[in-house]
């Protein structure tokens, strides 16, 4: 499965009910909901794929990983486009 890493140097700050995130890679600022901010928090520890992120979020929230899968999987595109995460090349240790 495709793995993602948090882009180095991003800034994430809580603002009211949302989060503001700045990417030094793109210079863009995005407003994130709690779910997207949580994904970035998980990736702060180490790169992960959708299943691994779901597992961590599930243990934090009590929501079943299956229920989180679509949400996490659907977040990668926006997070990547804004420059907050990057796709890692597929390695032999982490086959798709």
């Amino acid at each position: 499965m495709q793995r993602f890493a948090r882009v180095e140097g991003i800034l994430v700050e809580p603002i009211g009910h949302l989060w503001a995130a700045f990417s030094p890679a793109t210079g863009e600022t995005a407003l994130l909901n709690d779910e997207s901010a949580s994904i970035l928090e998980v990736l702060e520890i180490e790169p992960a794929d959708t299943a691994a992120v779901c597992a961590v979020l599930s243990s934090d929230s009590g929501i079943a990983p299956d229920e989180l899968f679509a949400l996490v999987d659907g977040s990668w595109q926006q997070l990547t486009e804004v420059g907050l995460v990057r796709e890692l090349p597929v390695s032999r240790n982490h086959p798709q």
Partner: protein
Amino acid sequence: MSAAASDRPRSLADVTQGAIAEALAVNGLWLDLGAVTLNVRSDSPVLAAQLKIVYGHYPFIDKGDWADAHIRIMQARGLRRWVRPQVVFYCDGRLAFDPFPADSPLPLLEWGANWLVAQRLNDLLLLHAGAVERDGFALLLPAMPGSGKSTLTAALTQRGWRLLSDEFGAYDPEAGVFRAMLKPVALKNASIEVIRDFAPDAVIGPVFPKTRKGRVAHLAANMASVQRRYETARPGAVVLPQWQKGSPTRWEPLAEHVLFPALSFNAFNYNLLGEAGFRAAITLVRQCLGWQLIYSDLDDALATIDAAWPGVVERHAQAEAS
């Protein structure tokens, strides 16, 4: 940044129109706006009179040692000069914009100077907002289309608030303060009469009937604002104004996630500043209280702001004490 100097502490109101015209024609007139100084040269026969009105309290400086930008407002040459006279705007020797009618050098100067400031002052986060000061704290009025930002800014300055700028909330991230970018307030269309009625003694320059933004007239900054243009202001509060015909005054607190985009995504140079801009915007959102103000009655709107202000000052005093 602002280092213009003169041996003569006279204001533009103190000198003759001829002296201003001569300065414009020879070495230029230095306009010291606080955070920025402009050198303006012109051969326009009417600009001196217009400047004398709306920059009346500014020091008359015809020999300065520094300007952040050198502007020339010149009469268009060739057949234009006779058929449909125009003035053109040069910055640092380069033609910058489409010409304006020859009788409208002031709107061209004001518009062009704003553009230059927005392009060049990138040591500051330039929020697109009216900015006024009281008790050492800045009140920001971010510009949303049809918000009535200039009208409200102008009205506040006629009721004891110090004008920092009608156009720029000029935040210095290193010092953590707002700086004055003091120019006349550009009143447009109906707001000209609104301010005339609201403050009959206000000094308002000529009305220019056919600019790109409709009718425009410029409200002069008062003497106190000009004299205090080097005084900074700490972040105080943000009010998002919205004029709504017939509406009762509504005053509603705003959450940080509404304030942040209202400030940052509406700034002139937020993207250019990158991480520094982000950090500055976050700092402002953390420090400033925020409200939305929907109004139709200007007096009532001002009374609402005035009533809330002691709470703003108190909250900052508590924050500093802790």
